[in-house]
C-alpha cells in the first residue's frame, strides 16, 4: 500500500470492487422479490509483495466477502480484482499455480481438516497435489513441516480429533505451508484460543513470515493481534474500507471516527471503560444515503448525512487514507 513500485506488480490489487448478493427479502415467506445486499462497495486495496495487511472489522463489515474475492471464490459484481497483474478468477482457473502460491488458513481449523485422514495424510495430499516432492521424500518433508509449526513429527500418525485447538491450528498452518506459498491468507487464525496458545501462534506466524518472506493477509477483529502481526491495516465498516495505513500510525492516531471508536472499545489494562459507540451496524439492505457511519458517529455533521465519502489520501500523513469528510486531526488524539 505504501511503496509504489512499477516493476513488480502488486500481489493483490482491488479496484472499486463491488459485490452485491441477490437475496430474498427477509420476513416475507413466499415472496420471490429479491433485493441486493451490498456486501462490498467501492473497495480499493493494493497489497505489495512481502507486505502484511490486517483486515479489521466487525461482523457484517464484508471481511469474509473480501477474502472470497481475493481467493477467487467469488467474482466481484463490479470492479476489478487482480492477482499479480491478472484477474483473480482467471488466475485461479488457469491451473494449480494460483492455489500453490496463495494458501489459506481457516478460522475453523478443525472443520477444514478431513476427520477421516491422519495429519500425515492431510499434509501428504497437499504435497502430492502440488508435486512438491517425490513419494520417498514425503515422510521427511512432513516431519519437517510439523517441526516448523512446532509439533512433534509423531503427530503425523494421529487424527485431528485427538489434537487440542491450538495444535489443530498448527496443522492447518502446516498444510497451508506445504505448497511453499508466497501469500498466506488467514481468517481469524488465532481467535477463540487461550491467551498462551494465541501468543504461541502469533509468534509462530511472525517467525514463518520472516523465514519464508510471506505476504500475509490477516483477517482479525482484535486490534492487538493486528498490531503485533501486521505492518499495514485496513479497517472495514459495512462493506467499505474506511481507513488504511501503517498499523501503528493508524492505531495511535486514527483519522476515521469509526477507527477511533474501535480503538477505544478494545480492552486495555486499567483504562476506564470508554463511552461505547451508540447503536449497531445498520442492515446492509437499506444503507443510509450519506456516510455509512453517520448514524453512529458522534461527530457527524449535516453534509455527512448527504454525501458518501470515498477513501481519500490524507495529505498530512504518509501512506494513509480515510473515507471521512471531516477526518480527525492526527495530532490531538
Amino acid at each position: 500500500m505504501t511503496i509504489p513500485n512499477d516493476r513488480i506488480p502488486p500481489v493483490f490489487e482491488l479496484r472499486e470492487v463491488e459485490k452485491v448478493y441477490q437475496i430474498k427479502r427477509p420476513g416475507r415467506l413466499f415472496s420471490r422479490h429479491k433485493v441486493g445486499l451490498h456486501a462490498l462497495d467501492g473497495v480499493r486495496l493494493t497489497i505489495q509483495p512481502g507486505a502484511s495487511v490486517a483486515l479489521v472489522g466487525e461482523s457484517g463489515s464484508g471481511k469474509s466477502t473480501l477474502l472470497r474475492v481475493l481467493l477467487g471464490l467469488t467474482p466481484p459484481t463490479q470492479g476489478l480484482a487482480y492477482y499479480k497483474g491478472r484477474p483473480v478468477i482467471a488466475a485461479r482457473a488457469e491451473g494449480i499455480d494460483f492455489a500453490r502460491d496463495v494458501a489459506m488458513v481457516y478460522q475453523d481449523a478443525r472443520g477444514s481438516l478431513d476427520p477421516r485422514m491422519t495429519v500425515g495424510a492431510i499434509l501428504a495430499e497437499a504435497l502430492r497435489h502440488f508435486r512438491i516432492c517425490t513419494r520417498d521424500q514425503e515422510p521427511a518433508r512432513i516431519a519437517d513441516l510439523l517441526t516448523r509449526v512446532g509439533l512433534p513429527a509423531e503427530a503425523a500418525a494421529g487424527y485431528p480429533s485427538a489434537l487440542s485447538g491450538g495444535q489443530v491450528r498448527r496443522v492447518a498452518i502446516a498444510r497451508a505451508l506445504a505448497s511453499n506459498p508466497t501469500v498466506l491468507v488467514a481468517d481469524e487464525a488465532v481467535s477463540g484460543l487461550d491467551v498462551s496458545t494465541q501468543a504461541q501462534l502469533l509468534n509462530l506466524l511472525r517467525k514463518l513470515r520472516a523465514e519464508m518472506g510471506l505476504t500475509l493477509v490477516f483477517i482479525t477483529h482484535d486490534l492487538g493481534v493486528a498490531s503485533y502481526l501486521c505492518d499495514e491495516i485496513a479497517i472495514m465498516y459495512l462493506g467499505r474500507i474506511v481507513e488504511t495505513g501503517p498499523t501503528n500510525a493508524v492505531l495511535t492516531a486514527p483519522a476515521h471516527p469509526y477507527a477511533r471508536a474501535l480503538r477505544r472499545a478494545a480492552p486495555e489494562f486499567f483504562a476506564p471503560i470508554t463511552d461505547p459507540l451508540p447503536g449497531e451496524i445498520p442492515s446492509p439492505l437499506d444503507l443510509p444515503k450519506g456516510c455509512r457511519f453517520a448514524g453512529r458517529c458522534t461527530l457527524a455533521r449535516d453534509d455527512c448525512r448527504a454525501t458518501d465519502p470515498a477513501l481519500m489520501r490524507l495529505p498530512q500523513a504518509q501512506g494513509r487514507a480515510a473515507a471521512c469528510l471531516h477526518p480527525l486531526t492526527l495530532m490531538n488524539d
Partner: protein
Amino acid sequence: MTAPLLQVQDLTLYRGSRKILDSVSLDLAPGETLALVGESGAGKSTISAALMGLVEGARVEGHARFDDVPDLIGLNEKGWSRLRGRRLSMVFQDAGAALNPCYTVGSQLATVLRRNMGLPRKQAHARAVELLESVGINDARARMQAYPHQLSGGMQQRVMVAIALACNPELLFADEPTSALDVTIQAQIVRLILDQTRAHGASCIFVLHDLALASQACDRIVVLYAGQVMESGRCDVVLADPRHPYTKLLKSCVVEIGTENLDPPEGGVPSYDALPQGCRFASRCPRAQDQCWASRPPLTESAGRMMACWNPEVAA
C-alpha cells in the same frame, strides 16, 4: 468490611474420578464485581454453574453461604426455586441459545415477572417494557413482539440482561457475556451490566478470559488454573503486579496494541488425568521446585492478595 454476601469455602467438584474443582474458596461483598479468569478447562464456568445449582452428574463438596442461606451446596430443588431467578440470576454467553425461539421476548420477560414476582398480567407487561427500555432497547413496546431470532446478537444479550435483572437479584452471574459479540457491542454490554447491577445494588460475578477487560470491569479477581485458585485479590493489585507465576504468564501473553514482543512458554493446559499431585500448575511453571510437585501450596495472604504458591515472584 461489611459481611460478605457470598462466602465459598473449599468448593470441590468431582466428575467421575476427575477433580474438576479443587478446594475453591472465594468471597464477595455486597455490590462488588468479581472476575473469574483462567484458560479453558480452568473451571470458571463450573464454579458459577455449581453456585447456581446447575451441575448434574457430579459430586459437589464444600460450603457456600449466600446472605441468609447457610449453604447453597446440597440445597434441594425447592430451595433452589426460591433463589434461582429471584435472588441469583445468570447472563449466558450465547443469548441466542438461552432465549426460547418459540416465544416473543416480551412474553418471556413477562413470564419471568409473573412467576417470580407474582405480578398480574397487565403490570408484568408494563414492567417488561420498562425493563427493555432500561437496557437501552429503543422502541421497547414494539420490540416486545419480536422473536429472539429477529434481534441482533447485541440486542439478544440486552434482553438476557433485562431478564436476569427482572427480579432485582442480589447476585448476577455473567458467563462470558460478550465473547460472542463484536468489540463495540462488547463495550456496550459490559457497560450495561455494570450500570444495571450498580443501580440495583447487586453483586456480580463475571466469568472472563480477557484479563484486560477484567481489570476494567471488576473490583476483584480470582485467577484459576485447572480447578485451583492460584491468586486472588483486588484487580489493581493482582493484575498490576502479579506475583503468582501463572497470573504473570497469563498477563504476559495478552497482546495489546503496540505489544512488541510476546514470550509465551511452550505447551498448554494438560488433561485432567495428567495433572501433578501438588500444585496443578507445576508442570508448566518456570519457577517450580520439588516442593511444588509434592504438595499443594495453601492459599495464604501475602503482598496484599491471597496466593497459593511455594515460590512466588518477588516484587518488581
